[in-house]
């Protein structure tokens, strides 16, 4: 059933990467519990514009939980107070009338703030550019059914591949580690015969790039898994470590 909420927002505002940020407080009324969290922010922004103020910058795009663009840290949780969702899938029925909601950007040395709640995640692209691919050109490829792949392996690969690259794992990790992100890609490809061939080299190159870009190390707290909107398992980190070890031993 639809209800209306009156809320107080404490929002991180920061003009650009170089400026100092601060929290600003905003009141917002008559928000439908049927609205999504981002629709609530749309309403706040529309009000701010009418008041002659600059709206709150935040990243968003598909609003279906798949593009990985939205990236808010809400009341101390990446993607807010619900499980297995992105911020755009968070609905206002998760909040109560009179609540104060704190909204921050991802906080990580590797993700500098661009403005307000928007961060720069190009570090993720760079890690994947270091080796997160199978080295095949377009064309000259055997039939898709030429190499059978067991259903179990294909399904497990798919589970790892469901990573949307949002960065919630990094934002949640106390070390700012990108191990869940890296391991998901390494694991997804290593599970398939097509990706296995370059498995060791890939693992080494991606881990080296991750270290170079200022992400922290993994201490196995499992916080990343708990906050991952796609429920990516930390068992992939174990597989990455195996691949990485094999690569090092081979040297």
């Amino acid at each position: 059933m639809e209800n209306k909420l009156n809320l107080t927002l404490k929002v991180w505002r920061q003009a650009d990467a170089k400026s100092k940020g601060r929290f600003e407080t905003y009141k917002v009324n008559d928000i439908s519990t049927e609205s999504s969290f981002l629709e609530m922010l749309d309403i706040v922004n529309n009000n701010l514009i009418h008041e002659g103020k600059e709206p709150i910058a935040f990243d968003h795009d598909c609003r279906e939980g798949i593009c990985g663009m939205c990236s808010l840290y809400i009341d101390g949780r990446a993607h807010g107070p619900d499980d297995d969702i992105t911020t755009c899938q968070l609905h206002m029925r998760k909040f109560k009338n009179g609540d104060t909601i704190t909204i921050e950007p991802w906080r990580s040395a590797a993700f500098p703030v661009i403005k307000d709640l928007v961060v720069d995640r190009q570090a993720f692209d760079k890690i994947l550019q270091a080796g997160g691919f199978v080295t095949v050109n377009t064309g000259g490829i055997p039939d898709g059914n030429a190499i059978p792949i067991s259903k179990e392996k294909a399904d497990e690969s798919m589970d790892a591949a469901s990573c949307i690259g949002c960065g919630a794992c990094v934002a949640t990790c106390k070390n700012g580690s990108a191990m869940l992100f890296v391991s998901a890609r390494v694991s997804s490809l290593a599970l398939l015969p097509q990706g296995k061939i370059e498995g060791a080299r890939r693992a080494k190159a991606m881990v080296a790039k991750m270290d170079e870009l200022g992400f922290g190390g993994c201490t196995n707290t499992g916080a990343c898994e708990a906050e991952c909107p796609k429920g990516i398992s930390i068992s992939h980190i174990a597989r990455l470590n195996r691949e990485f070890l094999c690569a090092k031993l081979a040297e």
Partner: protein
Amino acid sequence: MKQFDSKIPAGPLADKWKNHKAAIKVVSPANKRKLDIIVVGTGLGGASAAASLADLGYNVKVFCISDSPRRAHSIAAQGGINAAKNYQNDNDSVYRLFYDTIKGGDYRAREANVYRLAEVSGAIIDQCVAQGVPFARDYGGLLDNRSFGGAQVSRTFYAKGQTGQQLLLGAYAALNKGIARGNIKSYVRHEMLDVVIIDGKARGIITRNLVTGEIERHGAHAVVLATGGYGNVFFLSTNAMNSNGSAAWQAYKKGAMFANPCFTQIHPTCIPVHGDQQSKLTLMSESLRNDGRIWVPKKKEDVEKIRKKQIKASSIAEEDRDYYLERRYPAFGNLVPRDVASRAAKERCDAGFGVNETGLAVFLDFSTAINRLGQKTIEARYGNLFQMYEKITDVNPYEEPMMIYPAVHYTMGGLWCDYNLMTNIPGLYAIGEANFSDHGANRLGASALMQGLADGYFILPYTIGDYLSHEITSPKVNTNTSEFEEAEKAVKARIEKLFSIKGKKTVDELHKELGHIMWDLVGMARNEKGLEQAVERIKALREEFWKNVYVPGTNNSFNPEIEKALRLADFLEMGEVMAYDAYNRNESCGGHFREEFQTEEGEAKRNDEEYTYVACWEYTGEGQKPVLNKEPLNFEFIKVAQRNYKE
């Protein structure tokens, strides 16, 4: 009137592409290294094209508006990708996929293009498997298939309910490979604001750096637009919030023809609108129609009780349910094409049988399938879609049927292009949803992914070589010319103008108003009077926009409001041309339904005699009515017939 040639090769249908490839020129590796190509957009079309062109040895610059190429809206496609592999031994073939696509498009697409699409479809699957795309497999380890609307065979390949995502990650990985190799340069958070034409040829683009606001010039020997569709002209759609038609529109305003703008796909299975504070609609995959049955109550009193929440849908007896698609279309049942399913839902809701408070919803019910296959199987097939539905609506679809209603999803219309995917501006190409070429008046499910990747992996890399073979002696494009200067000046002036208005309405408020006009008058059902009104109201709204919009902030910073304002300015022109096109087409076909032209049973009534053509609109100046050019569609190989999904 524009002179244009669709360059469809002569010869038998099955030999056209083969003969064409043999006839066109290629560029030597040493010369490819000297040639630059700009690709705008990094969805399936753009990413696959950029990666493949770089594999060939060209220098590629690739641009996207998101923070990473991987976020393009292709990622949201759920259900699958079609390919004529005939792995299921169900008598599928290149011809059958071609035939289904032409028929699904209501005989308003080019035979030669569609045949080629079907022909290369199999190679797409092979390519994706080689990239490590984890398609669903059966217990024997081979690739699995499911069924989709408009087909009687199972030819849809899928990766859970995230097929678009997985295919895009494959293409994005191929792009990353090119970036690592060094012959692709990626520009993220950059928006193309104009195309630059020198001596009649596309020679570059003007972009805005969305982080700094800087206006930049980029030159190349060819420009490829892979910038998707313009569904967001309706404000509410299943398109991503940042999806827009502006790149294609700038090309149109520089002389490229815009084809069939009124052909819009309204997808039948979306989550219904909940109120006027909504910003976005959510699609539920068409794959759900494999196992979901669509119905409304037979009795009005049941409808009333459901709307008042006095009874639950599951409590309505089987004999009191109207499975209207199964009733009207026995041969295809719930798997009729999207346009047919959408209109049928509208017909029931207009007749007063809609099942939510607004009266604009029908049921999509899985109880039969759950009883037959067990909840586990349904969960394995659609788990993430069911979860998505429950998060949005707070209703558990394993227990109660989903509520769905049609919403704007895809645009079949787009930039006109020839058989080589080149627009009528030499050197300017349009691929994927940005062009008009393959889907006619209605696109079949799981065919957008197929077309994007067909264009990018296997068509453009061949055809662009033919054009570039004449460019091998052209030096690097100099961006310090008067043409670049003027284009940059015009872009800056447009931005300054928008900031200077300082009116009373926000961009979103004006966009919502446009959306209402479009949905009410240029939406699922159109008529002559409504379209006349639409043109007048859009003109008035456009005038208001340029007098009364308020764009806060400055240009020299990250400012989503100026991005949205620039896009809305274009939507306000696009909507008008869509209305002209819908007004001109005095027939119903595919997604274009003119109320005046329907059969007694309410089916779309085409007028093949007068409208078997591609409507190509030509820009004639600011505020002027565009000129209509016609490319006749010649059906040499199949018999044009009324679409029949009944028997």
